[in-house]
């Protein structure tokens, strides 16, 4: 295991591995054009990676818990569906919808930047519920009530209609790469470092002249934008949305993904999304026992990896892995903050 980790710590090895994963994903629809269900799963996985990547900026880096990510996800999905059905080009309506989600995130951050822990949890839970209930009970002409919105137009790119799942897959992969790149730039920037500092010690950061509410709302806005993009992608992928898909369970699923993968890391949200999607698909065959096993599995994993998969690997092989695209300050800083 030590040797595997030493090899994995090499920059070039990581680059090659990332390239291999991307190439395999891209080649998949070419080699297996009939497995449309698998294409659908990969698309969903990509969407979750995008949402979780944004969520990680909020939760893993700036340390603010949110149990209402499904709210932003729903805003993205609903607005994109409504705009595109009104005749606005799909790409524009996706961008518009994500911007609205980001705007909502910014306004939600105004009360939230003063809150911590359970206070923040309940406000975000409440926010998610409000969005879901608005979709359910709002103007039925707009949101369709419990029936949801059907017949959402497909994405068209340069005159091509991306109706097949395989074509959509390429679109999603491109956006995933863009999302990961932007996240990397954000967390490596001055703003990202400020977020980490605020997470580690809010009082000290404030004393150094960082405006907490500014960075906290930046994190919220970023996460909301990512979730909005994810929601819009979801709406144009399945082309039917209903309030069912945006319940509080969806929010806690995002949290589970990010915690299983490991928060505050580059790979964590990706690992978490892959594992949870994989586990859910494998458990499908157990029928009514599916969610029972899923719940038991979460507890089981925690007993052996109390800090998530990426967290545990990082802790055990820290001396080897400190060149991984992982911010070493986050884990240590958290411990220090708890002691203090």
């Amino acid at each position, binding site marked *: 295991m030590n040797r595997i980790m030493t090899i994995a710590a090499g920059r070039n090895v990581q680059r090659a591995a990332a390239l291999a994963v991307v190439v395999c994903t891209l080649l998949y629809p070419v080699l297996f054009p009939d497995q449309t269900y698998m294409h659908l799963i990969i698309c969903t996985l990509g969407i979750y990676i995008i949402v979780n990547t944004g969520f990680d900026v909020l939760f893993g880096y700036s340390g603010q*818990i949110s149990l209402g990510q499904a709210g932003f996800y729903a805003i993205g999905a609903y607005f994109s569906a409504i705009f595109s059905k009104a005749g606005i080009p799909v790409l524009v309506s996706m961008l518009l919808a994500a911007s609205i989600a980001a705007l909502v995130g910014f306004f939600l951050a*105004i*009360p939230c930047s*003063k*809150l*911590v*822990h*359970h*206070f923040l*949890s*309940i*406000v975000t*839970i*409440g*926010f998610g*519920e*409000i969005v879901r*209930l*608005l979709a*359910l*009970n709002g103007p039925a002409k707009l949101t369709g009530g419990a029936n949801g919105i059907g017949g959402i137009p497909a994405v068209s790119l340069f005159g091509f209609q991306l109706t097949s799942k395989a074509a959509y897959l390429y679109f999603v992969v491109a956006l995933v790469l863009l999302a990961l790149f932007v996240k990397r730039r954000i967390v490596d920037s001055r703003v990202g470092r400020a977020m980490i500092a605020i997470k580690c010690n809010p009082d000290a950061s404030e004393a150094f002249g960082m405006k907490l509410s500014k960075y906290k709302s930046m994190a919220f806005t970023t996460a909301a934008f990512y979730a909005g993009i994810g929601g819009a992608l979801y709406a144009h992928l399945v082309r039917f949305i209903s309030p069912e898909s945006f319940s*509080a369970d969806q929010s*806690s699923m995002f*949290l*589970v993904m990010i*915690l*299983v993968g490991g*928060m505050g890391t580059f790979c964590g949200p990706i690992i978490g999304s892959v594992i949870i999607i994989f586990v859910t698909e494998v458990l499908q065959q157990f029928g*009514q*026992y*599916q*969610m*029972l096993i*899923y*719940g*038991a*599995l*979460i*507890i089981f994993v*925690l*007993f052996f990896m*109390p*800090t*998530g998969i990426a967290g545990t690997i990082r802790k055990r092989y820290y001396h080897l892995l400190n060149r991984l695209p992982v911010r070493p300050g986050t884990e240590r800083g*958290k411990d220090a903050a*708890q002691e203090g």
Partner: protein
Amino acid sequence: MFGQLLAGGIAVGCIYALIGLGYSLIYSASALMSFVQGEIFMLGAYVAYTIYVSFQIPFALAVLLAILIMFGFGVVLQRGMISPLLKRGAQQIQIVLATIGLSIFLKNFAMIVWGSDVKNFPSALGEAPIRLAGISISPQQIAIVITTFACMLALHFFMSRTKLGTSLRAAAQDPMAAGVVGINVPLTVGVAWALAAALSAVAGILLAPIYGVYPKMGAILSTKGFAAAVLGGYGNMYGAIIGGLIFGVVETMAAGYISSSLKDIISFGVLILVLFVMPHGILKVKAD
């Protein structure tokens, strides 16, 4: 109309307060958040239902047994899951994850064991509403209010007058110092989790005759109980009661005067507004 809604709101608020008290107890005793309270609430109702309806045991005995079983469940939960996880280096947020996992497990466990249909829990007090000064109140609502206040009084006296209660408060304030002066801190933490479970079970049994028993009954109640605890000031026993009553009354008033489909939107909106003005809840506690 107003009196009617107020009475209904207080009854619902009492349920939220009972669940919220559980959250507060757990937080003050072990500084942790548990997301399994709603499922304990549901499980308590199911256990009482099974003992009372299936085994035909007298109501009072059945309820007592169910509460005792859930008390034991709380101890097992703390000893079997939470404490070992903490020993293995899990942090607050991983405990949240573990309790989310457990709540998924329990919800589906109930669905498999008892089925997903709504079970009718016969009220031991009859259905005939009592008319009082122009307001009609069901006997179950009166039972909810009386039981809740009895529970709170009992909890208040337990906390302030008994040795175990006092040591629980001491351990909550400073576990290390409490341990130094000879208080059995693990015992007090276990008692707090068990009490929280018992309170949730009481709430479940009280609400069961009104809405019936079904696997998803805990999901929304756990959120609202949590809202009650936070609104009142997290970790503050009396805050949970105030928060629960406010939340219940606001919700019922919104349903009565505005629209029942908008009641949750309004009550959560009010919650966000209150926390915007008072970021630490109504009865201020230091959050860190």
